[in-house]
């Protein structure tokens, strides 16, 4: 006989779980009491349940497994909502386990009772309310399978206190995780033949590589596909890392803050090959003028994404890797010299606008910080970003060669994501160097998790890009609201001293020549180090496609930069 609480832990162990990010409380107390009997589980005590969900999310994204977060009922559960929604939007497999009041008290507004299955209904793949010990094991099996299968995502299991306390028969040795279910596929020979004909006949094709490439481990297939047919690849934010940045066919990130040549290539393409991406409004600009000359082929595991935002000509449903494997043998070898040469010419114009060409004027630009960080780490670090200007600069200036090396909240755009997600990532990839890049605004949302990093004695590096504003909002106010900086100037603590208060190393860098030494000092330090980079306050991210504009109608980097660079040359 086992209690429901014991069964819970034994199921988690059966699923291969080694780390659980959580916070105890009344309704989950029996589970925490039983935890004492399972030393093979490393429980990470967070400082806020939102942190637990982001940690589980970062753990899943960095390592490819399922992240597990745990909380008590009521406020513990509701604090998880932001992290669950973040995982849902970015297709990250996490299982959240919440305690619930005893089944006899359900529906009575009991102390710390909340309808968390009702609350999380639209932001989970599915959720369960478990009221009997007998149902704990089959529910967890199903929850893990669902989280991982098809398009991954979050699943919540709410377990009443009496289900944790009561006992039933359970054979731990018989616990086997459920096999993943196949997603919907349409290996229709005609569709594939048509797709191949369209690709082989195209003169100006562009691949749009999304998160699905990483989730299906299709990196090798993507590379083979692109090289064989000489098709350039534009990346979505979450697709970054799915194809090496240094590869000549990698154009870089597309969309609102994509480089001009990437967006121009998409707008002028005669064929778009969308691999595991969902045509988010941040990558398309206005749909009316999106890639007007291009036929579109969509490779996607989720049928509900087909024709949701952009009408496509061919939809190949299924796992990106499986679909590409079927397409590659029939793909004609092409060199597409004219098209690639044309895109190269587009790059020339942008290169002179690059902030890296600016001489050191004594001002510290965030782009410099990211660029130097990339150089110092040889592009080999896992970078976990928060949301805002620094996130876009990271995507532009840190060149990712490896999959799962950029972890960022794309769909939901959750400020406060970076630090807890990095903590989770560190547990999934303890050998990896991990950098948090966060703004002064987002970092303050979850900086309490510094205590978690300290308690766990983690070796993290944190770069706070401190410009004294909620920078991305300020940028919009500058461009679109007549510079009325409403509620965006931001007072921050001395982040270096704050780090010291947690027993961590804190460094402040104010000029370009302090950047590399600070990065080196942080890297050499065992344990977590935080660098507070005091950067130019009113810097903006360029290029920028204004909301509602066509993808090629970008606000380019300001011309003074071009003139300065030109006069230097």
């Amino acid at each position: 006989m086992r209690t429901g609480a014991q069964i819970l832990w034994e199921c988690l162990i059966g699923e291969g779980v080694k780390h659980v990010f959580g916070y105890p409380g009344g309704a989950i107390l029996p589970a925490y009491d039983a935890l004492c009997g399972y030393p093979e589980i490393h429980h990470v005590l967070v400082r806020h349940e939102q942190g637990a969900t982001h940690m589980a999310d970062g753990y899943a994204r960095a390592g490819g497994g399922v992240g597990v977060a745990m909380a008590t009922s009521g406020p513990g559960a509701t604090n998880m909502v932001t992290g669950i929604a973040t995982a849902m939007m970015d297709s990250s497999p996490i299982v959240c386990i919440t305690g619930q009041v005893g089944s006899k008290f359900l529906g009575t507004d009991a102390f710390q009772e909340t309808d968390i299955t009702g609350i999380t209904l639209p932001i989970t793949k599915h959720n369960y309310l478990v009221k009997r010990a007998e149902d704990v094991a089959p529910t967890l099996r199903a929850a893990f399978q669902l989280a991982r299968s098809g398009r991954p995502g979050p699943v919540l299991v709410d377990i009443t206190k009496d289900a944790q306390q009561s006992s039933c028969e359970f054979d731990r040795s018989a616990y086997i995780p459920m096999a993943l279910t196949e997603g919907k596929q349409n290996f229709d020979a005609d569709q594939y033949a048509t797709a191949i004909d369209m690709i082989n006949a195209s003169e100006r094709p562009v691949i749009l590589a999304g998160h699905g490439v990483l989730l299906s481990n299709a990196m090798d297939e993507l590379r083979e596909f692109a090289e064989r047919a000489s098709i350039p690849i534009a990346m979505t934010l979450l697709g970054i890392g799915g194809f090496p940045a240094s590869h000549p066919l990698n154009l870089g990130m597309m969309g609102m803050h994509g480089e001009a040549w990437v967006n121009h290539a998409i707008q002028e393409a005669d064929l778009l090959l969308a691999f595991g991406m969902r045509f988010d409004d941040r990558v398309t600009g206005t749909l009316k003028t999106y890639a007007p000359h291009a036929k579109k082929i969509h490779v996607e595991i989720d049928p509900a994404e087909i024709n949701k935002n952009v009408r496509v000509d061919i939809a190949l449903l299924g796992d990106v890797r499986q679909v590409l494997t079927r397409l590659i043998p029939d793909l004609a070898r092409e060199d597409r010299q004219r098209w690639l040469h044309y895109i190269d010419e587009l790059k020339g114009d942008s290169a002179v606008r690059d902030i890296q060409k600016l001489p050191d004027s004594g001002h510290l630009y965030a782009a410099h910080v990211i660029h130097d960080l990339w150089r110092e780490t040889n592009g080999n670090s896992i970078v976990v970003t928060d949301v805002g200007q620094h996130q876009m600069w990271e995507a532009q200036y840190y060149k990712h060669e490896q999959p799962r090396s950029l972890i960022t909240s794309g769909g939901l755009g959750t400020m406060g994501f970076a630090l807890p997600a990095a903590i989770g990532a560190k547990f999934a990839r303890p050998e990896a160097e991990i950098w948090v890049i966060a703004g002064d605004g987002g970092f303050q949302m979850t900086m309490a998790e510094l205590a978690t990093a300290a308690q766990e004695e983690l070796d993290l590096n944190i770069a706070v890009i401190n410009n004294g504003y909620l920078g991305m909002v300020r940028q919009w106010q500058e461009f679109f609201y007549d510079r009325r900086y409403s509620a965006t100037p931001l007072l921050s603590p001395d982040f270096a001293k704050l780090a010291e208060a947690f027993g961590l190393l804190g460094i402040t860098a104010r000029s370009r020549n302090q950047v590399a030494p600070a990065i080196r000092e942080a890297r050499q330090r065992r344990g977590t180090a935080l660098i507070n980079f005091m950067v130019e306050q009113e810097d903006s991210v360029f290029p920028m496609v204004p909301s509602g504009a066509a993808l090629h109608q970008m606000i380019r980097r300001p011309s003074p930069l071009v003139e300065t660079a030109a006069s230097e040359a």
Partner: protein
Amino acid sequence: MVRTFIVYVADHPGVLNRVSSLFRRRGYNIESLTVGHTHLPEISRMTVVVAIDAQGAPLVEANLYKLPEVLHVHDISSVPSLHRELVIVKVAASQDVRPEVMRVVEAFRARVLEVATESLVIEATGSEDVIDSLIEGVRPYGILEMTRTGRVAMTRGSAPVFAPGQVPPKGAAPFWNSGHLTVLRNCS
């Protein structure tokens, strides 16, 4: 235009909530939704009428299939099918107009459920058009109260839309025949 979907779902608490929540958050406008038991144990059937164009219909279907408790979806909008709706209407019918009301009742092959001193309760089944006409027919006498069930539908011909043990339909929920339904029944 409106389209009609037959949706087989596991007969669990909360399923209706999950389906209606999906329609709400995706902005699909429900014209009517009916749900009830089927002859199959633990399986319920919904008839959902949605205001959506032909391009949007596959998205409704695909989104429904993302709910693990949805077993089968069939868009019967372009399939020969039978549509029925039931209405119960309480009409003011004093002695002097009652014969006229009764003529309307007979014309629509409706039934009288209750005769009170100042009113009649009328029941009718038929397509929405017939029901609409009946309502207009009795409206001049004064409708005191009325309730409509919304559309229920069934395809013509002998092949059922869905049968237990049949091969998983394209796009079937991931837990088809996996024993998952028991879990869902106990824990949803």
